[in-house]
């Protein structure tokens, strides 16, 4: 039985119900959070039901959207991201009543990006993803949060403009809006080249690839913590998914146009992102630069342009996202009422709360790519992809980036495991919902590192693009 678009429809319904819940229960209400979570669960169940259906892949609305195993995996990932963000920010008085509604709306955008097969749907997805996040980033209203929202809005609008211009040029050059109908052999070349370049720039801007990464640290630092988590995980999934759809479905035969360029960008991003992470004193900024570097790892999968690349990218998103969830949950717990956490605030964490220190260790080691964590398996898969594509440069760039990154990730750990100078601070509160996210993320990270075979099986099935080799 196919429920094709019902994961998305259920989110649409969920958005309205949540809005109504906010209105009925007057301003801030726990009910809206429950409705939001229920929506995510329902959508997840339908996604799983879709997975086992025989009638996929299916193209709907004149090839505007394609529901296939790939889009379902993307669905699953962004649902995890949304659930994580929602639960880390569960019923937090600091965020407005619109928090669950906006999380769901952005979720819808991410899901749309996973199944878009058409320029218009692509653009709708990008905007549906971005607009709620602009508001969420600014949801603390004043000060840094407002600044982050404004920066995000201005730069996001700028990149949307570039993207739209690129899409328009491509349409002009090819005469079709559908990715799979693009035939580069019959395009007006300069127009198509410019269009492709601008579109890719617009998309990697969302992904946060160097040199289009400038907005990320400020926005991540200023946004409320659950929102940062959401951006670090969900946005990356959405942007990576649409980039892959667009390039692999639309321009697969002309990988020479974009492959090398993205390869260089990937290496640049991995190295620069990790180098800058090394210099950070604020934990959120550190993770922001880590997010940039990880976007570079994702780009390795795209520029490898083979079946392994697509699968490796899809696989890598999960351990990366889980590590992000765990790390941000720990920051949220330790920061308490504050909005950010410096590296020095971590000093002595192992003595204040050994478990939090242990969980942070797992998250950081996974980001660094140490074996027996999911991050290692992900990087291993990406290296395989790069070498199968006969691009050893990408693999070496990846490990050089990982080396630099490692130094960045162990610095907070060293702080956490050294004794604090005197005063013992107040005990750390463990909010229930956030704790669930943290424990699940940490257990899954280790599980993914110890026995990744089932997940490898799923991504291998979902990214089985037969025209790649």
């Amino acid at each position, binding site marked *: 039985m196919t429920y094709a678009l019902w994961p998305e429809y259920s989110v649409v319904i969920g958005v309205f119900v949540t809005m109504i819940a906010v209105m009925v229960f007057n301003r801030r209400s726990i009910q809206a959070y429950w409705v939001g979570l229920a929506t995510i669960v329902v959508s997840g169940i339908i996604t799983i039901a879709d997975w086992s259906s025989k009638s996929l892949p299916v193209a709907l609305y004149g090839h505007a959207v394609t529901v296939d195993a790939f889009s379902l995996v993307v669905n699953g990932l962004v649902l995890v991201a949304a659930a994580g963000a929602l639960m880390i920010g569960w019923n937090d008085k600091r965020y407005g009543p619109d928090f669950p509604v906006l999380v769901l709306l952005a979720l819808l955008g991410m899901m749309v990006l996973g199944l878009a097969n058409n320029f218009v749907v692509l653009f709708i997805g990008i905007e549906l993803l971005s607009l709620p996040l602009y508001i969420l980033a600014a949801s603390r209203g004043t000060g840094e949060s407002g600044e982050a929202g404004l920066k995000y809005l201005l730069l996001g609008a700028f990149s949307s403009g570039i993207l739209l211009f690129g899409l328009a040029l491509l349409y002009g050059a090819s005469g079709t809006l559908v990715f799979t109908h693009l035939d580069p052999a019959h395009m007006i070349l300069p127009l198509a080249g410019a269009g492709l370049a601008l579109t890719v720039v617009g998309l990697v801007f969302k992904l946060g690839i160097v040199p289009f990464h400038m907005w990320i640290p400020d926005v991540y630092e200023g946004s409320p913590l659950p929102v940062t988590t959401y951006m670090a995980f969900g946005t990356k999934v959405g942007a990576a998914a649409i980039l892959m759809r667009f390039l692999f479905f639309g321009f697969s035969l002309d990988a020479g146009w974009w492959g090398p360029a993205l390869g260089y960008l990937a290496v640049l991003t991995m190295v620069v992102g990790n180098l800058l992470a090394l210099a950070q004193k604020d934990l959120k900024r550190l993770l922001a630069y880590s997010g940039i570097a990880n976007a570079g790892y994702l780009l390795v999968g795209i520029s490898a342009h083979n079946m392994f690349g697509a699968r490796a990218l899809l696989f890598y998103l999960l351990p990366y996202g889980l590590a992000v969830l765990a790390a941000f949950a720990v920051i949220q717990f330790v920061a308490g009422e504050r909005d950010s956490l410096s590296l020095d605030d971590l000093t002595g964490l192992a003595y204040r709360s050994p478990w939090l220190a242990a969980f942070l260790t797992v998250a950081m*080691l996974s980001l660094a790519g140490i074996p027996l964590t999911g991050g*290692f398996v992900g990087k*291993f898969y990406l290296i395989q992809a790069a070498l199968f594509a006969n691009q050893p440069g990408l693999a070496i760039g990846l490990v*050089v980036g990982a080396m630099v990154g490692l130094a960045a990730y162990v610095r907070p750990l060293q702080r956490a*495991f*050294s004794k604090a100078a005197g005063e013992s601070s107040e005990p750390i509160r463990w909010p229930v919902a956030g704790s669930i996210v943290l424990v699940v993320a940490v257990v899954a990270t280790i599980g993914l590192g110890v026995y990744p075979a089932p997940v490898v*099986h799923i991504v291998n099935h979902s990214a089985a693009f037969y025209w790649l080799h």
Partner: protein
Amino acid sequence: MFLVWLMAVPLAGAIATLIAPKEVSKAIAAITSLVGLVGYAGLLFISRAGIDWAWIPQWGIRFHLVSDGLSLFLLGLSAVLFVVAVFASDAHAGRAYYFWLLVLSFSVVGLFAAVDLFVFYVFWEVLLIPVFFLLTGWSGERGKKAAMKWLIMNLVGSFFMLVGVVALAVIHNQNGGGLTFEISQLSGMSMSAGVASWLFFAFLVAFAIKAPLWPLHGWMPDAYGESPAPVTAIISGVLSKAGIYGILRVMIPIFMPQFREYQTLLLIVATAGLVYGALMALRQQDMKMVTAYGSLSHMAMMALGIFSLTSVGLLGTTFYMVAHGLMVGGLFLVLGMLENRTGTRTIQDMAGLNRSAPRLAAYFLFFVLGTLGLPGLPGFAGEYMIIQGLIASHVVFAVIAGFILIVAAWYMLRVFQAVMQGPARTTAIKDLWSRQVAWLVPLAGLVILIGIWPAGITAHAVPSLYHAMHFALGKGGVH
């Protein structure tokens, strides 16, 4: 299956230390490591125990562990040294210390038993983490720097090795052999010479950093100097052998043509390390650093045995790894006890301690004589075989190595003489407690046993070495 239990024991112990109260951490670690030792003794009676499970079938990765002649005695070395290290540790070191020590023990078993390159790499890298925390948590600000250096240097090496690991499998796949990480299948694979040379050095650098071999020993002085004695004993006794073991296990079967091609270069570099370590050891005023640089020199000796590319040289290295591990581990522990009692490591600050602590002096002398290669103790047999191998391949290096053996006697005895003999200038110290003697006696007994009966190890190691060099022999590798 037996090997899995051998790995599960320290892991279970590690988890138990987290749950149990702080006071019993040491007891748990002691029991765990003793059970591990008994289990290992059982392993001696099973020939070629092993397991072979599918781990990530999509990538041809199998959880394949084997205890053969190469790994069997290194497993034993680690089992013994972990017991000794736990007993020598401070009872108040805390739960995390024993937790990391047991995690280290777990990953070492995995590393030495792995014959799948992926599994090997996983444990290779995992063991960096416990050592990092052991260095960072139980020493001062300089210890943090040492930990950082250890981690970064080792990971720089092993990340390049990771590319090498994947590249080998990918090349094997492109040759039509399918995706596999099994070392025995990757051996003797045809590769273009250029690629093979790159991969050869990617692996060699990773192993040389871990050993450490000159000139990649940058992390060593800090890590050895800053770590507590039991941790130093483990690093120098067990982990340093992992580097040499990696060359034997992974590189010899796969890269024999490259070894032949670069043999002279490798011999020169290893000899330089041999001389450098010995000369540095002569200059040190800190008795722990004398041993550390002496150990660096001895690691170069093991490398020479391999680079001689003769079967007797390889055999000598296999044997010398175990012998050196036991002796240098014991020596570092004795030095640690000495440091505890005197509060210093500088040679000039001590003299004539054998009057107040005769038993400590006796054990000190025993391990000093062992490391400098006194006949009758195992170091001699190992060095003898290595030099025999060098004579067969390049006699000039054998001459230099023989000369350095004399220097080794000089720098080791210099320490002993200055610290233990002469007029008793320093205040008297307490002699060994009977509890400490209790674990030093078996260690010394074991050293004597393999010293007078090296065939106990070599007879087992020979078939495995020939197995490892099977393809190499086919290509006219070793004589």
